[in-house]
């Protein structure tokens, strides 16, 4: 009898492994339904203080000061879109680096690592469930955002997907490198929280980056995500872009290739280092 197992690696066996990883994460996520429900409301809660603060700066709900930087008086649609996109960015941050930390804590990291599956596939598998869940929660968030804060899209939704694709693929490269760093230092919470928060600030998820003080602006301008968020917003709510849209797209595509290359290289090198140190099972 011919036995087809994971120990004879083929594309089909890799797909099965990927499916198993996704199923496991999916089951684990929905096992705690309150956590699942809270992930829809959590981002709305985060932006509620900005909403009330924004009202204090607005006349009849229109933020004229804000429009001088962004080109729109609808500050809540601007912020809500940034929050949704940031959730996807975090899904890649959390989905890979944090999942590895969870595996370490639960003591399954070493045994998972011994399976004949490409290790990058394990990372990708961990992020897929997160991305699907983010998609579901984002839809919920936008619906509630429309009801509570008057979220409104005036542009072309399909065109907005064009910058999303290279941005998300490039993020995977970043996520690989980041996951390797988590493996090496064995502590994810602070690293994930701080870095995702900094990226959130400097990529302008809650405000137009040209409102940053001059000395901080260069940090925003070297982050490819800044251009991703900027391009998507301009397509959806007609904000003014930092660079011409075509240039922003070119930058995003370059970012995609460069980050994937750097991410894979960094992951392989750091993962080897962890195996040399023998700290894979420690946490």
């Amino acid at each position, binding site marked *: 009898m011919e036995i087809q197992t994971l120990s004879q690696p083929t594309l089909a066996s890799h797909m099965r492994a990927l499916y198993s990883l996704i199923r496991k994460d999916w089951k684990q996520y929905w096992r*705690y339904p*309150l*956590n699942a*429900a*809270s992930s829809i*409301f*959590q981002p709305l*809660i*985060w932006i*509620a*203080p*900005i909403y*009330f*603060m*924004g*009202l*204090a*700066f*607005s*006349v009849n709900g229109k*933020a*004229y*000061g*804000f*429009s*001088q*930087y*962004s080109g729109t008086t609808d*500050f809540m649609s601007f*912020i809500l879109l940034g929050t949704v996109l940031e959730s996807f960015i975090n899904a890649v941050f959390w989905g890979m680096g944090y999942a590895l930390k969870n595996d370490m*804590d639960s003591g399954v990291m070493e045994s998972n690592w011994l399976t004949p599956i490409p290790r990058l596939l394990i990372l990708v598998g961990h992020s897929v469930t997160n991305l699907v869940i983010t998609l579901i929660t984002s839809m919920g968030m936008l619906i509630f955002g429309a009801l509570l804060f008057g979220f409104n899209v005036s542009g072309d939704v399909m065109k907005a997907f064009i910058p999303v694709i290279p941005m998300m693929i490039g993020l995977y490269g970043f996520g690989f490198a980041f996951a390797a760093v988590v493996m090496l*230092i064995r*502590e994810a*919470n*602070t*690293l994930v*929280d*701080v870095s995702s*928060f*900094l990226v*959130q*600030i400097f990529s302008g998820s*809650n*405000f*137009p980056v040209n*409102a*940053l003080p001059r000395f901080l602006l260069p940090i925003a301008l070297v982050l490819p995500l800044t251009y991703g968020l900027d391009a998507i917003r301009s397509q959806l709510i007609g904000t003014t872009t930092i660079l011409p849209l075509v240039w922003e797209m070119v930058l995003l595509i370059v970012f995609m290739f460069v980050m994937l290359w750097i991410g894979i290289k960094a992951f392989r090198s750091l993962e080897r280092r962890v195996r040399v140190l023998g700290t894979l099972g420690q946490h």
Partner: protein
Amino acid sequence: MRSEMSVRSLAVPGFFADLQAFWAVVRREWTIFVRYPSWIIALLIWPVIFPMGYILTARALSGTNGIGLATFQRTTGLDEYVGYIAVGTMIWMWQNIVLWNIGGSLRNEQLRGTLESNWLSPTWRFSYLLGASVPQLISMLMLMFVATLEYIFLFNVQFEGSLWLSLLVILFAIPSVYGLGFAFASLVITMKESNAFVFLVRGIVMVFCGITYPIAMLPDWMQTVSKWLPQTYIIHGVRTAAISTEGLSGITLDLQMLAIFGVIWLAIGYLLFNRMERRACKTGAIGQY
């Protein structure tokens, strides 16, 4: 030959044994805390980056020529927003970290698989929570100290009020903040879903207690809710004590309310813990997760 030896251990219950257990928990928590040096980064970075998001949004809302800021000043009666946001967010961070650390302390032990064995030891079980609070409080005072320095030197916040009055408000706030943490820890160990509960409680504080805006900006029903939350008085009290020159008279109501809330929340925390303890004995579910 049979040797006689006086054995003094935790198995001999008494005040001294309870104190030893408490100290053992404090030591363990402190060791875990310093074991991961990333806390130093967190201590330095969080007080800056957390309010920074709100401060920069407020800056964007102000506009290039200050048109939005003029509206803000008219609407709220405040001259500036930086110090106002910095203090509000610092108190929120304190409550948030207590919820994660104290509220999640028993749950973390449950996940690590050490809760059941600890529970079986003949110790005063409340010391698990109380002991975890001490290193946490020390780290929080360090965070506040670092945050204050960073606000002065990086954000140029003018703390024109009194340091001692600010510390007095924080002292009065401790029972409410940690009492809520104790209640939370007991609830989470029963309900399991700590993340959802942390998100809910910190979300309520974030929306209702005015971390970035005056409570008067909220609709009436939300203002009523905010009056029942101790964090509203902590934020108002520390802001008044640290930023304004109103002195003790400006914070008297806050101190009174915090004293009342402190007693209530400590009692709720202790009662919920006892209830959870009894429930755990009956159901035998303490080691499950």
